């Protein structure tokens, strides 16, 4: 009973937090709503990275590749037919002459992200440590290079625009909830527990029969699928996207969110994404002058990045295990008498 309640709290806490952000976003003005949507999509991306990096303990700089694939797949396939022939002239006729709806495009994004991650993971999951970090980074570089240059599958180096902006408060909240629920279900499953055991001690886990590489591959694939879905959400929120928006900067920012929140817990991933993204939004508003708590705050432009980066470094130096300490939410424990 107690264990059941504990797991319920572990799922409910991040889910409620996301729902709260979604609800608040509906009351915000259209100009401010975009910040809340950004935060919800950041949650989806960071949790998708957490599914692999957090559960396996293997660092990966390649997860944004799957976000990019999802974003461009969902984007290219949902541009309305009549404008598509005009703007995307160079792509394969099959892609040019068909358009799919909003939900199918998100499913396609998740499917392609998962497939891509599976294919990449097959050879790469044997690596660990820095070699894994650099190899996954190479995947990001290759993905970016191909998306940017191969104009038969997308817009190439130009902006992909006219994507229906269907990611409003409802879709962003639901999307983030789906990603959180899948991540939760995975880490409590047999597969997830085996992978987490290998994170703590790869040799010991292998010793009790965990096939470490295979477990990493499943997590990588799942993470790719969730990343693809998050990419779909992202492109439907932005309405237009370039390959540069799903590349290095997003990689560093989302990894920083994960580590700031706490690498080894779902709660940490959600808290880190919301905290960093919220702070970023607040500071960019403050550069234009805001009035929090009755005081006028007007930051000179450019200080946003300085404050954001210093706070991130400070959190990591003072609390290296992240804001949440890498732990899930727990009910207060009843103290045992000795």
């Amino acid at each position, binding site marked *: 009973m107690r264990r059941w309640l504990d797991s319920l709290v572990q799922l409910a806490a991040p889910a409620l937090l996301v729902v709260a952000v979604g609800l608040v976003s509906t009351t915000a003005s259209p100009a401010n709503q975009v910040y809340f949507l950004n935060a919800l999509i950041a949650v989806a991306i960071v949790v998708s990275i957490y599914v692999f*990096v957090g559960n396996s303990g293997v*660092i990966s700089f390649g997860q944004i590749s799957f976000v990019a694939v999802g974003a461009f797949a969902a984007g290219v396939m949902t541009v309305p037919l009549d404008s598509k022939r005009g703007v995307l002239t160079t792509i394969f006729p099959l892609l040019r002459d068909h358009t799919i709806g909003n939900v199918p495009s998100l499913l396609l994004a998740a499917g392609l992200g998962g497939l891509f991650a599976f294919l990449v993971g097959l*050879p*790469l999951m*044997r*690596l660990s*440590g*820095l*070699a894994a*970090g*650099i*190899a996954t*980074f*190479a*995947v990001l*570089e*290759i993905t970016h*290079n*191909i998306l940017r*240059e191969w104009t038969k599958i997308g817009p190439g180096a130009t902006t992909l625009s006219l994507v229906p902006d269907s990611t409003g408060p409802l879709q962003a909240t639901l999307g983030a909830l789906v990603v959180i629920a899948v991540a939760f279900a995975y880490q409590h499953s047999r597969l997830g527990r085996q992978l987490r055991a290998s994170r703590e*001690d*790869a*040799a*010991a886990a292998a*010793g009790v029969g965990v096939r470490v590489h295979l477990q990493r591959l499943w997590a990588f694939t799942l993470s790719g699928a969730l990343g693809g879905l998050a990419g779909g959400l992202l492109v439907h929120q932005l309405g237009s996207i370039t390959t540069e928006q799903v590349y290095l900067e997003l990689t*560093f920012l989302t*990894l*920083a969110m994960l*580590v700031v929140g706490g*690498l080894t817990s779902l709660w940490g991933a959600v808290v880190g994404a919301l905290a960093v993204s919220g702070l970023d939004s607040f500071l960019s508003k403050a550069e234009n002058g805001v009035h929090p708590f009755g005081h006028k705050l007007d930051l*000179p432009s*450019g*200080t946003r*990045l*300085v404050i*954001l*980066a*210093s706070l*991130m*470094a400070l959190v*990591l*130096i*003072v609390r*290296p*295990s992240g804001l949440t300490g890498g732990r899930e939410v727990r009910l207060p424990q009843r103290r045992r008498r000795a």
Partner: protein
Amino acid sequence: MLLAALDVQTISDALGLGAIYALMAVGIGLVFGVLRLVNFAYGQLVMAGAYTLAFTAAWPLALSVTACFAVVVALSLLMDTVVFRPLRGQSPAVMLVTTFAIAFLLQAIALIVDLRDGTLGEVAPSLSYLNEPVTIAGAEVRKITLVAIVVAAGALLLLALLLARTTIGLHTRAAASDFRTARLLGVRANRVIAFSVFLSGLLAAAVAVMMTVQLPFVGPDFALRDTIVVLVGVVVGGIDRLWTATLGGFAIGFVSGLINGLLPTDKTVYLPSAVFALVILVLLLRPAGLFTWGGRAAPERV
């Protein structure tokens, strides 16, 4: 046909780039050796040096270069005291992401400083005359290439002597191979680390001086791309030893220099894909490093 294009100038340019990357690789490898920390913010040290050169362009050359070395070394030591020291013993992921944050921070500060005059980017022209070619055996070679090769060879030789022949060098090598045992045997951790950080700062300043010759236009992302490439080279070469890391840095610089010279620009669009596919292949075949002999590291025993 390709070989015909392989003239002396292409090779010498590639050697020059390889030499500069080798110096950056040493700077990254030295700190990794004693701290087990991959310093992503290394490129921002070079960037700070380049900005110093740009802001002191009106000064006499020797003074300007001295200022560059002073600023970079001071920043490097400051980074050690404020950031690296509290992080000692943390997991590699935390240390790496913290250096991301530091890199962002330094770039953001550079952006604010740079934008004071209303335009983005500064020019550091003091040493541009080194771009002029000299004729050696009928082939034109840029002076900076010669300077880069000589400086890199000299610096590596000095470093090798320093590590091999002095007490502090011996301590550094001991700390790099087993930090805890070295400390038990009386090696002073802070001194060894400060020594490595100091040397890596000196190297970053030298790199800054040579890079501004080829790219006198300095912006906040100066040397960022180069750092990423060098990091890849260092890991591919084998980060656990200083000389394999250096060789990795040199190799990736030399190869990218050669390819750039060989291929016409309209054919290079998929070049990054080819290069990084090669990187993946090497990592799969030799995860401990291309130049590491003895195959892969022994599996952990418990």
